[in-house]
């Protein structure tokens, strides 16, 4: 069974700080997706990474897919209160597969 481990599970920081969230597995994934979920809402897809070593930027968010396609990281620069939410990573075992394996998430709180 493929598993995705996210760390840390909880993170509370002050506005303006930088942070990194990790998503690790012993299995290889053909693609990996990051979502953000705010309280009372469904997850919103932020990015999909498909190539080992790939780096994608979305404003202050930087996503990296590991060279071996077993891990990924999300780095947020100068966090804002609006970044508060549950960050989920999810991986696809093979290209074009509909099924995703989800990590349990990192709950981020950015304090003013």
């Amino acid at each position: 069974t493929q598993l995705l481990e996210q760390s840390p599970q909880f993170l509370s920081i002050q506005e303006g700080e930088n942070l990194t969230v990790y998503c690790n597995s012993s299995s290889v994934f053909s693609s990996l997706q990051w979502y953000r979920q705010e309280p009372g809402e469904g997850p919103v897809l932020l990015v999909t990474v498909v190539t080992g070593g790939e780096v994608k930027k979305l404003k202050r968010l930087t996503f990296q897919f590991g060279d071996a396609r077993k891990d990924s990281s999300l780095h947020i620069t100068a966090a804002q209160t609006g970044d508060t939410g549950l960050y989920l990573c999810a991986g696809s075992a093979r290209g074009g597969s509909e099924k995703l394996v989800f990590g349990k998430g990192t709950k981020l709180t950015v304090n003013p």
Partner: protein
Amino acid sequence: DVKVTQSSRYLVKRTGEKVFLECVQDMDHENMFWYRQDPGLGLRLIYFSYDVKMKEKGDIPEGYSVSREKKERFSLILESASTNQTSMYLCASGDPQPQHFGDGTRLSIL
């Protein structure tokens, strides 16, 4: 604006009842999904559908069934609700993987 719409945000039912959760998408996606989300367990796939009248079991299909009679609509059915089915239920659509989620139905079984 693309949307996945779930029929209810909150639902309270009794054990033994048959429960229907409805989901509609407006993006013409082939694939639709039903997940449940529980604290400490994350999102778990119940069923997904890759075409009208076609379905495939996910990781936890026991106690659930699904129906997809039209491309835009995917229903989750709890045949005889039990208290351990109290959860947040999320519908999603996407090709091939979930790209858009609904806002969820928080279902309580008493």
